[in-house]
């Protein structure tokens, strides 16, 4: 986690002269969805922190696991206490690059984003398509990708094995504002 702060702080502080190249949101949206024959589970997080440096395409994202809101209180409790162990690993993060950022036509288009996703204290290299848009001075990144629960060493008890999908769909919509 120390490394993450160094990245965020350096993204925010370095090159103060070109401050308009930094974009920040503290209210980004990330949700995940699990579909199984027994039930569908969805959780939303509206308090995602994300910083983008448009000069390099670097991006750093961080969120609190406890900020995921579930429809059912019981699911939220099991998620935090048993599966992702929020008391031990309160945060998830992603640090990476938006590829070919400078080549995007007037900053609207689809490209790839690649980097390291850390959940439950385990790291995994991921790569996914991202839609990049610039609207009303907002830098919007949106898209979705799939992750395997097993990759993050998250143990699902046998009794609820059929209730939770092995692969979870993660969706994101991050609306950044210029940071100065």
């Amino acid at each position, binding site marked *: 986690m120390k490394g993450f702060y160094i990245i965020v702080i350096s993204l925010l502080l370095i090159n103060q002269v070109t401050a308009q190249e930094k974009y920040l949101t*503290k*209210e980004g949206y990330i949700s995940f969805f699990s579909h199984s024959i027994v039930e569908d589970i969805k959780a939303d997080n509206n*308090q995602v922190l994300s910083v983008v440096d448009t000069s390099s395409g670097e991006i750093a994202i961080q969120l609190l696991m406890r900020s995921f809101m579930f429809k059912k209180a019981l699911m939220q409790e099991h998620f935090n206490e048993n599966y992702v162990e929020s008391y031990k690993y309160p945060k998830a993060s992603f640090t990476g690059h938006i590829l070919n950022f400078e080549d995007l036509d007037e900053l609207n288009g689809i490209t790839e984003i690649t980097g390291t996703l850390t959940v439950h204290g385990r790291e995994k290299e991921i790569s996914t398509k991202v839609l990049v848009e610039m609207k009303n001075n907002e830098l919007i990144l949106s898209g979705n990708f799939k992750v395997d629960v097993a990759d993050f060493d998250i143990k699902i008890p046998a009794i609820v094995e059929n209730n939770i999908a092995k692969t979870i769909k993660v969706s994101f919509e991050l609306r950044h504002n210029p940071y100065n």
Partner: protein
Amino acid sequence: MKSNQFRWILSFLLIVVISLTIMVTYYNKPHINVRETKVDYTLSTINLIEEYQQDEGATDKKYSEHVLQLEGKIFEISAQQGNSVITLKDKGSESSVICQMMAEENKKMLKLKKGDNISIKGVCTGYLLDVIMVRCILVE
């Protein structure tokens, strides 16, 4: 003999119905009702932020998942996905406390403005660059 068998079946069914009811109630148990829940800690936004900055790990263990009542100055009111978000921040402070309000509080936002001193009750979820609170309500 017949009536004995009937009694067995009846009591078996009764047990099934009772356990199903318990399971469904447990499965559907409601989210914490912040308004009705006792406050675990009452403090000012400055004190909360300072504690987090001094020792994030220990402070997080102390406050996260707990109901806090915070006093502070409104820095910003915004809306997002149908909910209001109040940012509490004091002059000269880099960090703030971001409070995601319950939808039922939306109407009360109209009466508030930047710079007002208010009291907010909610559940703390932790610290990023700011302290994050969810399920918040205004304390009047």
